């Protein structure tokens, strides 16, 4: 647990609904994340966690409701939307590093092309960030030459390079070999300590316990439970949550 | 070629333009590509006629291959200006093409393998395999009744892309006879003899094939100039001399003795 998570709201979701065809994937979601808060989203597969995460930078559109980021409703398109996205970093399960660019270029591409930061300045900042996630020595390799853990840390550096107000993580460690999970979680824990606002979809209890301010349990498109990590893991309220925890905790 | 456009080919000739002349490129002794330009009787006649049309001055010529199957479209398209390519004047073709000439009269005849004794007259072609070259009508004289044809025999047709393929098939025993104009056959026989091939032309002509000069339909001005030139070339002995040059000494071949009567331009 850290000492952040008590700021003003940074992002607010109000009665958000989302359908895929006839499938109702987000059902009347209300959720607020404050500045500096670390929110962990947990729940069974297909419950809508990724979709929730993706609506927050409008990679998915919503069918009804409102999403307010930093005081303004999410823009629908064009420059304004691009600008918003540059303020909300995103880290994907599959890393999604640009395969045709080196690690350094992956990190500088956003700042130079979107923010028009001068090349040297972007390069300098990129190296600082790569240093921070511990892969500065890999800067000139291509993504495919790196291990999964290194790629994911590069992806985090890429997200941070835009100086986002918030970072979304969608199962950042579940595509990794087990021995690489911890090195990525360590970077995320550091980030949380530094006061970054984070929404993290993950099943890693260790991370939730050590870094989260709040846990949201989602199933069937609904927020079923919303509480502190300790409370959630030691004393879940709903049967859904109990059942789910029993499945993932035994092994 | 040339950037200027001309109403008639005659204008182009007289203006010193480069004339695109269509000839065969694969017909020994008539039009056969050897080196940069084709050579043969048709080629020489074309040069002489054009020179005559230009008042005795040489004309710049671009040679363009005009296979039997492409002669009409090439004239219609303007791919070529004028054609000298074993082009028999027929009523059907007159619908699509204006013919100058004729400049020479060939006769349909039959060529068989040297050792083939079963065919000695055109009538023997009944039941035999004869060649049908794409774009040529010669086979009709054998298989169809008049007016299009002549002998109305029951011969079997073997398709081929052109006459060299016909000759190849004749040599390989894939057909029994090639029947078309004696000048064409003579050219092949002469070429084959030079490299050990054995063909014989029956020497029994049974049609008159009036070789005309192909022009775009309606170009009567040029047509008349062509006719005048041809007359001149017959009169001064050039035509006779050219026939001798290319077909002299071939057995059983009756060369044209005097200027064939002009058909009139339409």
């Amino acid at each position, binding site marked *: 647990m850290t000492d952040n998570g008590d700021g003003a709201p940074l992002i607010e979701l109000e009665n958000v609904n989302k359908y895929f065809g006839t499938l109702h994937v987000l059902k009347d979601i209300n959720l607020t994340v404050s500045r500096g808060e670390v929110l962990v989203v947990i729940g069974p597969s297909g419950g809508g966690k990724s979709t929730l995460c993706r609506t927050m930078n409008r990679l998915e559109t919503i069918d009804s409701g409102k999403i307010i980021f930093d005081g303004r409703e999410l823009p629908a398109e064009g420059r304004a939307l691009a600008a918003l996205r540059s303020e909300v970093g995103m880290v994907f399960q599959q890393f999604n590093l640009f395969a045709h660019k080196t690690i350094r270029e992956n990190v500088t591409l956003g700042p130079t092309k979107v923010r028009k930061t001068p090349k040297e300045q972007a390069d300098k900042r990129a190296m600082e960030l790569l240093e921070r996630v511990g892969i500065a020595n890999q800067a000139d390799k291509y993504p495919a030459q790196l291990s999964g853990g290194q790629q994911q840390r590069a992806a985090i550096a890429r997200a941070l390079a835009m100086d986002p107000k918030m970072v979304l993580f969608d199962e950042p460690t579940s595509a990794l070999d087990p021995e690489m999970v911890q090195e990525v979680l360590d970077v995320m824990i550091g980030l949380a300590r530094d006061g970054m606002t984070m929404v993290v979809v993950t099943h890693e209890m260790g991370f939730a316990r050590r870094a989260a301010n709040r846990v949201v349990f989602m199933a069937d498109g609904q927020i079923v439970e919303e509480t502190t990590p300790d409370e959630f893991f030691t004393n879940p309220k709903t049967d859904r949550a109990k059942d789910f925890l029993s499945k993932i905790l035994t092994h | 070629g040339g950037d200027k456009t001309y109403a008639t080919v005659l204008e182009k000739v007289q203006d010193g333009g480069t004339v695109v002349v269509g000839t065969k490129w694969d017909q020994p002794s008539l039009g056969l590509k050897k080196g940069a330009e084709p050579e043969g009787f048709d080629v020489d006649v074309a040069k002489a006629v054009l020179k005559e049309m230009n008042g005795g001055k040489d004309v710049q010529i671009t040679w363009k291959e005009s296979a039997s*199957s492409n002669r*009409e*479209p090439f004239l*219609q398209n303007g791919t070529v200006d004028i054609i000298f390519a074993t082009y028999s004047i027929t009523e059907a073709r007159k*619908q*699509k093409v204006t013919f100058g000439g004729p400049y020479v009269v060939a006769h349909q005849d039959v060529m068989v393998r040297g050792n083939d004794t079963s065919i000695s007259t055109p009538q023997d072609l009944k039941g035999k*395999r004869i060649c*049908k070259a*794409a774009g040529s009508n010669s086979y009709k004289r054998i298989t169809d009744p008049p007016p299009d044809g002549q002998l109305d025999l029951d011969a*079997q*047709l*073997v*398709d*081929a*892309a052109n006459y060299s*393929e016909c000759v*190849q*098939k004749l040599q*390989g025993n*894939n*057909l029994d006879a090639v029947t078309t104009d004696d000048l064409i056959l003579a050219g092949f026989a002469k070429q084959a003899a030079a490299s050990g091939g054995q063909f014989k032309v029956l020497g029994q002509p049974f049609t008159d094939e009036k070789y005309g000069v192909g022009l775009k339909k309606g170009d009567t001005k040029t047509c008349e100039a062509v006719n005048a030139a041809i007359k001149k070339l017959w009169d001064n002995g050039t035509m006779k001399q050219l026939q001798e040059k290319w077909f002299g000494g071939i057995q059983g071949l009756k060369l044209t003795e005097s200027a064939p009567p002009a058909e009139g331009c339409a």
Partner: protein
Amino acid sequence: MDELIQYGPFLAEGFLENIKLALVAGVISLIFGTVLVSMRVSPTPVLRAAGTIYVNVVRNTPLTLVLAFSALGLSDTLGLTFSTVPRVNSFWVVGLGLAAYTSAFVCEALRSGINTVPLGQAEAARSIGLTFMQSLTLIILPQAFRSVIAPLGSVMIAMIKNTTVATAGGYLADAAANMKEVFDTTGASIPIFLGIVLAFMAVTLPVGYFTGWLARRLAVVR
């Protein structure tokens, strides 16, 4: 439009030849393509090499030349005859040439069909004790066959269009040859061209749709 009506029967006659050629070449190429693919995937290096060489040579030769070879080489020189009537003979010679060409593509389509079956399927089959023939007939071919329908459809469509090159094999009776003959008289006629194109589409589109439909229906969901 008048031209289309006037020459319609003549062109239709030609088009019928295209269809007949396509049927002949279709059947033969499927058989021959299957033989070729068996060679290409056999454990015998010589057969594999022979199959590979055949496919690569034929695929890289213009169809025009393949048909010419079929007529001059197979028929005229090697004496392969199907009929004493030359017209009929040329038909089969062209059909055979087209089939020889198409079978290289059929072979490749079948081969990549086998390729879409994941290795794990074969390993699972082996690991429950199925023999070579059993895993081939029960597991691999049924799955390969399904993923091969659509590509085979494209091969057949290409083959149908290729029947227009019959002239190159000395068979001057198809729609393209007839269209050319008509154009010599009429000049380019848009109605005639469109008429023939539509006739081809009337055959190729259903083949495409049918194979596409069948492929989707039978698709193995992984």
